[in-house]
């Protein structure tokens, strides 16, 4: 097993190098690039610009620049943001925990809902529940999550009021236009405006809508995978054997069917998980959540290429790590597979 992990880790290295080459070359195509900020500075003469370019090594061929950049990446020097002039790793480090917090909660909710529904659906194939669940899974797969986020804001932030707010009680703020009504749920940020140290209640309130939006990501797909895999397993001979030796239905389902159906689902989910960062990009942009996705969005708007590059690299590392995790989880859950 250790041998297999090592081999996969070694295989991941050239993949990462290739991705970094692609992204580096793409970004070096950008006009102005790192010099744009200096060219706009009226205090610098064209000679100064040339001198600075030489100092940064920008007049060298691209493969030399890539080599220098790669050497710095390895030792943890990821350069500085074009806009804030703070180190890229520091900027990302500030936001990554917020993104992970959002993703972790949303993803747990997705699994807690979709896996049991998929299982139950398959065990009661063609029942009313199955039809309804399958229909909603299809709907969930087709809903653009950014639109879902906007709808959540319209309903829970714009239309519905907080019932415990004074005087008016529960009212549709859109129609009643009361001045002191508060929205039912906050529609952005991690804390009320101007509050640096929010209470746990405030934190949770601010998480409800973005988490709901992000939890939609994958909900439909995982429900359908789980249903499909369970159906695949449930007619196998070993299930019949388990039934015929008199095990309770509960034992048959939990011990024999569930675990075997879960193995391929776990693999697909692990392969899918990095895609959640893409979902988080939309969630954080819509809900002004100070995470890595929003940082990427703002950097893209400002042409902050060192930061864009850093975020893409972090994502690439995570994708490769999750691919490895997918393989390992499969080996763990399916005893027929042993790597050596």
């Amino acid at each position, binding site marked *: 097993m250790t041998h297999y992990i090592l081999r996969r880790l070694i295989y991941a290295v050239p*993949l990462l190098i*290739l*991705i970094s080459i*692609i*992204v580096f070359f*793409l*970004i070096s*195509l*950008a*006009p102005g690039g790192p010099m744009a900020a200096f060219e706009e500075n009226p205090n610098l003469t064209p000679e100064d610009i040339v001198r600075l370019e030489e100092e940064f090594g920008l007049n060298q061929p691209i493969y030399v620049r890539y080599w220098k950049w790669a050497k710095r990446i390895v030792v943890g020097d990821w350069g500085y943001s074009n806009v804030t002039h703070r180190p890229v790793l520091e900027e990302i480090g500030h936001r990554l925990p917020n993104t992970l917090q959002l993703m972790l909660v949303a993803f747990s909710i997705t699994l807690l809902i979709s896996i049991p529904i998929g299982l139950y659906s398959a065990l009661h194939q063609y029942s009313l529940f199955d039809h309804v669940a399958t229909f909603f899974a*299809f*709907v969930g*797969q*087709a*809903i*653009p999550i*950014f*639109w879902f986020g*906007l*709808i959540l*804001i*319209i309903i829970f*932030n*714009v*239309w519905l009021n907080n019932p415990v707010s004074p005087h008016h009680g529960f009212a549709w703020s*859109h129609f009643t236009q009361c001045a002191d009504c508060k929205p039912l749920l906050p*529609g952005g940020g991690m804390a009320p405006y101007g509050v640096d140290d929010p209470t746990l209640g405030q934190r949770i309130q601010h998480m409800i809508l973005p988490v709901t939006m992000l939890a939609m990501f994958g909900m439909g797909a995982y429900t359908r995978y789980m249903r499909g895999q369970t159906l695949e397993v449930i007619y196998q001979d070993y299930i019949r054997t388990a039934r015929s030796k008199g095990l309770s239905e509960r034992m048959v389902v939990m011990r024999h069917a569930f675990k075997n159906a879960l193995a391929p689902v776990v693999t697909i989910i692990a392969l899918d998980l*990095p*895609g959640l*960062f*893409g979902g988080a*990009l*939309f969630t954080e*942009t*819509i809900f002004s959540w100070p995470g890595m996705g929003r940082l*990427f*969005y703002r950097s*893209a*708007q400002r*042409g902050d290429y060192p930061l*864009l590059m850093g*975020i*893409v690299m972090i*994502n*690439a590392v995570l*994708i*490769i790590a999750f*691919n490895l995790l997918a393989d390992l989880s499969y080996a763990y859950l399916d005893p027929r597979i042993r790597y050596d």
Partner: protein
Amino acid sequence: MAWQQFKHHQMAMVGSAILAILLLGAIFVSFISPYSPTDSSLRERRDPPSIQHPMGTDTLGRDLMTRIFYGGRISLAIGLGATILGVSIGVIIGSMAGYYGGKVDEALMRLTDLFLSLPRIFLLIIMAILLREVDVPILKANGDMGGIILILGLLSWTSVARLVRGQFLSLKEKEFVESARAIGASPSRIIFKHILPNTATPIIVAATLLVARNIISESGLSFLGFGVQPPTPTWGNMLNAAQDEMRKGNWWMAFFPGLMIFLTVISINYIGDGLRDALDPRKVK
């Protein structure tokens, strides 16, 4: 035969009907709608849905329904265009890998792995901002439409390539391929005339689903402001423009463009599902 099967898939038929209405609307909107997609009307700004404006008006007083069908042209054209490009690349790479095998297969499959490992939406955004600086007329037409087709196509061929490769691996050992080779057919003739037609079914199903995926990607990019640029309307950039408005209570500007994306995608997904059942030779009812 296949059509008989397809007809029995109720949701696929409903999806086809919805998609047909959307397509007809997108094609004939200029004859049907009394409004222009670009001319503003200051008297009618931010009107909620009414008889005159079934989906309301936007901040410049333009009829939202008219703009949605014009936007549908762009969104559907991008979804289709990017899919054609992606499927073409995927078929070429997949058939070469599957047919030649060995080192060619190894290299092309590593390339596919590489593209699968790319952080997709992040790279789409980087490519889209680079695209703004390129000055090629065909890419710049209709607010960057050509360029968006190109970058979506470049990042959507991997699944088709794997699918085609798998089909080729099993088909190339069959007798009909061997006999073609025996009578001296060239590799390109064997690939395109003999093997490829036999892989059409799964490719058609995958391509159908890819159209839906590309429509979502385009609207996502445009929603963030990195896709098709206004004044060319697409469902995505209409949603982008609606973000501030909906917080003021003007819900229709955000509701209808997204509803269109949703209806299109779910219709296409059901059609894909229906096609899969109808074209599956093992599944004859």
